[in-house]
């Protein structure tokens, strides 16, 4: 079986003359024509605009104007992010379509300026929350490893689009795991950057202090190439932090030798993880140990408070944004969405203050533990199980206890999900790699090193271009 294309490989082909950007975009649209009706990847495709952009990318490259690794590369954008080409729906009947008139947000603008070609808008869960909803007139994203399984959410279309080879990368957003979960369930790589590294403006908010925009692609190398372009403060988002510019690709090759990796051993993670996933995790840890990493088992202080707090606080923050719309358009929201967001009305102001106070305490305690143990990164399974079926079971997989992602939204620390193997049903499983604030380069380097040892990230699903 031939290996799937990556951003890196496609870039090499563009520069060697083996392919043009127009070739890549045409092939991507042909693949989408065939796969999208089953997969539910796209809410809108910008066929003409993307071909025009690809022609311009080819002309620039021919004229010696090489904009870097994303030049001429087809990307998908989750449809809660504003773009120049068209409206942003947030996959909801209630979204004001004029909201997207602001055009490209800073991250999309940066990708475009780096030569990326925007293929279109990918599916999500309504407002990046909720569950697959068959009652609304939007596509339900399906998993390319098994169409009766969910993709995970909420960056569902970007996840299954990359996994099925319709796009080489794309943007997701992550408030409790929405980049890392579809990365894990679809067998691709997804990175939630440090909070404040990547501006969020141009994104329909969910939980304003937990939201992150992050890349999904085949490999850590590809995510590093995207993050290099995406990172950097912007005056439109005052939560962003001025940091030195970093080329994350240049930092990938540090290897694993001498690093200290903390394997999270909290009961909540162990109890929320199936035996097969735990065995696959141990194989991944052993591979990293063989490559020279020191392994420690560690307990993360106040882990459950961090994890649960992300969901509670995001409901309150989401309610603040949606309150008036919920009051006037209750029935137009999907039932799972409205019943999740409205729980923010059941949490009082003092509760939110206390949750945020505990968040501050927990952040200090976790940072102190990581420092005292001398850890370079932490690891855990991204999820306890493979992707759940739409119907007939999978309750363990759908349980919040099986999602090992939200604590890191509360921390704001960078977290990467890379494929680490398969469950007995042939569904992908993800390894989550977590680093200290702004150690995104370290996290990506560990993911890249793991992907030099394994080829889980290069496996093709049955439904592929």
């Amino acid at each position, binding site marked *: 079986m031939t290996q799937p294309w990556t951003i890196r490989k496609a870039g090499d082909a563009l520069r060697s003359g083996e392919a043009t950007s127009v070739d890549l975009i045409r092939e991507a649209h042909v693949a989408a024509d065939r796969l999208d009706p089953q997969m539910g990847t796209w809410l809108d495709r910008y066929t003409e605009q993307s071909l025009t952009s690809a022609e311009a990318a080819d002309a620039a490259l021919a004229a010696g104007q090489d904009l870097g690794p994303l030049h001429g590369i087809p990307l998908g954008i989750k449809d809660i992010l504003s773009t120049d080409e068209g409206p942003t729906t947030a996959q909801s009947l209630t979204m004001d379509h004029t909201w997207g008139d602001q055009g490209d947000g800073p991250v999309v603008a940066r990708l475009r300026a780096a030569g990326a070609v925007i293929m279109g808008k990918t599916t999500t869960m309504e407002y990046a929350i909720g569950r697959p909803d068959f009652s609304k007139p939007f596509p339900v994203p399906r998993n390319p490893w098994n169409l009766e399984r969910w993709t995970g959410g909420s960056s569902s279309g970007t996840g299954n689009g990359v996994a099925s080879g319709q796009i080489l990368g794309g943007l997701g957003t992550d408030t409790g795991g929405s980049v890392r979960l579809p990365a894990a369930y679809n067998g691709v790589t997804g990175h939630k950057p440090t909070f404040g590294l990547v501006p969020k403006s141009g994104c329909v908010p969910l939980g304003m202090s937990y939201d992150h925009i992050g890349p999904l692609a085949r490999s850590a190398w590809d995510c590093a190439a995207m993050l290099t372009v995406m990172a950097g403060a912007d005056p439109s988002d005052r939560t962003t932090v001025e940091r030195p510019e970093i080329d994350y690709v240049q930092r990938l090759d540090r290897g694993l030798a001498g690093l200290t990796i903390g394997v999270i051993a909290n009961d909540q993670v162990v109890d929320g993880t199936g035996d097969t996933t735990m065995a696959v995790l141990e194989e991944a840890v052993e591979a990293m140990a063989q490559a020279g990493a020191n392994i420690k088992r560690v307990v993360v202080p106040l882990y459950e*408070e961090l994890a649960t*707090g992300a969901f509670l606080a995001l409901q309150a923050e989401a309610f603040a944004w949606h309150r008036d719309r*919920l*009051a006037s358009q209750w029935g137009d929201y999907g039932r799972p969405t409205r*019943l999740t967001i*409205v729980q923010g009305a059941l949490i009082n102001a003092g*509760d939110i203050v206390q949750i945020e106070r505990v968040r501050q*305490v927990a952040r200090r305690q976790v940072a102190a533990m990581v420092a005292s143990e001398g850890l370079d990164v932490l690891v855990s399974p991204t999820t306890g199980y493979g992707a759940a079926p739409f119907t007939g079971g999978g309750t363990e997989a759908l349980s919040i206890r099986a999602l090992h992602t939200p604590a890191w939204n509360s921390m704001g620390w960078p977290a990467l999900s890379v494929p680490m193997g398969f469950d007995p049903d042939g569904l992908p499983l993800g390894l989550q790699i977590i680093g200290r604030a702004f150690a995104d380069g370290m996290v990506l380097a560990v993911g890249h090193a793991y992907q030099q040892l394994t080829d889980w990230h290069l496996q093709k699903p049955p439904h592929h271009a």
Partner: protein
Amino acid sequence: MDEAVEDEAIVRALLAAGGLDIPDDEVGRLAKLYPSLRRSVDRYYEVPTGDEVTAAVFRAEDQDLGDER
């Protein structure tokens, strides 16, 4: 008052305070969830936070607002 009835009354009051008038079956669904939601929130009051920890760090100086440095 029966606990379930009390939960439903609380939920109705909180929704009304938020300007929401929603179908009875969904109020019932939220009323069933409410005790576990409340337990989840109450856990946060058991964590020692001391007196100095605030929910958000407020600083009066702000370069964007033209403060003098």
